[in-house]
């Protein structure tokens, strides 16, 4: 996994709460057995019209948000299905940072495993940033993970909470499985006791 330390990028707004993973990537694209190449299907039913052409009303299709790497959305982003294809699609499309008042649990965990930083800001701050992304052309944000801050072009800084354990993994791009395997002896010892139980 690519480490995440600092990131500066264009912010795109998605003015919707409860964006579920079925919207982030619809089911017809879950049949692939690869991890790569899902970006083309991101928000498919919102991004494309029935004839396959782009829906010009959808924010990510507007010229000013091409190349965005920070998405600012509403509360409970990523709810629903556990499909990791959702963060795969976001990452492949170019998003490294997601900002929302809250994220669904499984989705948040899936983001961490893929080097995407989900940042929770309070609803007012998230809405303020989203409105600026809507009204100011080329609105860029800088995310500093060691300091746990998001800074806007005017120098206004927002701090966010972050689990210190997950932060370390993101900063160093650590392999989860490798970390757990350090404790293989403890697992084996536990397993011996567990296997001896009747159920």
């Amino acid at each position: 996994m690519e480490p995440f330390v600092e990131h500066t990028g264009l912010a795109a707004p998605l003015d919707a709460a409860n964006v579920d993973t079925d919207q982030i990537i619809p089911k017809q694209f879950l049949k692939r057995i690869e991890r790569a190449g899902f970006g083309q299907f991101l928000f498919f039913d919102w991004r494309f019209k029935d004839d396959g052409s782009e829906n010009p009303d959808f924010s990510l299709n507007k010229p000013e948000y091409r190349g965005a790497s920070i998405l600012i959305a509403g509360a409970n982003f990523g709810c629903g299905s556990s499909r990791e294809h959702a963060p795969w699609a976001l990452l492949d499309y170019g998003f490294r940072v997601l900002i929302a008042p809250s994220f669904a649990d499984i989705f948040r965990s899936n983001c961490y495993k893929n080097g995407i930083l989900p940042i929770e800001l309070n609803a007012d701050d998230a809405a303020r940033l989203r409105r600026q992304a809507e009204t100011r052309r080329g609105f860029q944000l800088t995310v500093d993970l060691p300091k746990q801050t998001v800074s806007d072009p005017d120098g206004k800084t927002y701090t966010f909470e972050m689990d210190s354990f997950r932060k370390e993994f993101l900063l160093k791009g650590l392999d989860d499985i490798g970390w757990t395997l350090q404790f293989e002896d403890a697992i084996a010892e536990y397993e011996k006791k567990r296997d001896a139980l009747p159920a």
Partner: protein
Amino acid sequence: MNAPRTMFEKIWSSHTVREVPGEAAILYIDLHLAHEVTSPQAFEGLRMNGRKVRRPDKTFATMDHNVPTSDRSLPILDLISAKQIETLEANCREFGITLYDLNSPDQGIVHVIGPELGLTQPGRAIVCGDSHTSTHGAFGALAFGIGTSEVEHVLATQCLQQQRPKTFRINVEGGLQEGVAAKDIILNIIRRIGTAGGAGHVIEYAGSAIRALSMEQRMTVCNMSIEGGARAGMIAPDEKTYAYLKGRRFAPKGADWDAAVEYWKTLPSDDGADWDAELEIDAAEIAPQVTWGVNPGQTVDVSGAVPSPDEFDNPDDQKTAERALEYMDLTPGQRIADLKLDRVFIGSCTNSRISDLRAAAHIVKGRKANADVRAMVVPGSQAVKRQAEAEGLDAVFRDAGFDWRESGCSMCLGMNPDTLAPGERCASSSNRNFEGRQGKGGRTHLVSPEMAAAAAIAGRFVDIRSWS
């Protein structure tokens, strides 16, 4: 005397291989269920890193999400689906994992076959790359959905890194009205707490109304915990749990059975245990529920009407409601009972078990589906299908003009050919009414299987309490 503990705390602490402040806990997993959609990249990850499956005996796989529900002797026409199915077969062969494939008499929806086979047991930590893994919590297990990276992690280590969730007890007390189903309980709960109301929590459903439910009804309740945002849902094991499990293929036998039951009896939450959140619900107040919008929290009583966005206080809820009205082609004030339906789907890991099919068949028997409605019944597993056919339920449905299918997830998520056409309105016994979930442009209303069956006959929603 130890401090009183919740069932969650007991199961959690008996599964922590390592729990150190400032680190995620390493939680041991007793049972991992796998299916074709969320596992291929996990197996590929193992291969790329030269890793093995630590305990192939603790993972069981089946194919359910993308499988056709038509004649199993025919080839799968969707080549990408076929490839995904073949990939699961190859991966299970390579890594030595038990697979219940399309030709197996044990094939079915992963959350239906786990309990059927007796793999789902009280006190176990159970995971699957599917958010509805919470279903298994009905047995007093800690069961939750995971992503594909975590599937790989479990395969490699038989453990997961987990942050300890909070606890949330929901007490449903008293008797349900006649015709009100387990599905109505959980839809009503989600309507109250919202789709993020359980975020970060494990919910324990308790109270006399929950204890009165059968095991299959309890599974329906726990199944939709994720739709309330919860990490997991669970219900204390009791005599019904033991009676359900006894004699099943993977249930303990002989002296082990007695020892297991003794252990399981220690699991229920202690009196006086602390909860991070609590909610009390009067069962008698719950009416049959119908979702009107595009998330399972957007629910009203069948006797009610489509709400207006300004009835909601929160601006997010108002906006979501406006969008839902447009997508669902509804106007505020429309009576639920006036909504005409094009399709009915009875199936999914929420409501496709034998008791669901019996309840639906009871409504349908001797009647005909409305001429404007196309109805389908998809049993949750081959075992459910065989049992239903032995009881003649398939004939009841067929005689009424319903389509009787092979087992799988089917139109709950429409990964296979079973989908809604744009604009079609469907009464569905499944768990998600998200935009496009059952097919792009399709309009899903979640209901109990009884309500779905009655809607198929009437061609519109009817209050099952007045059905005769």
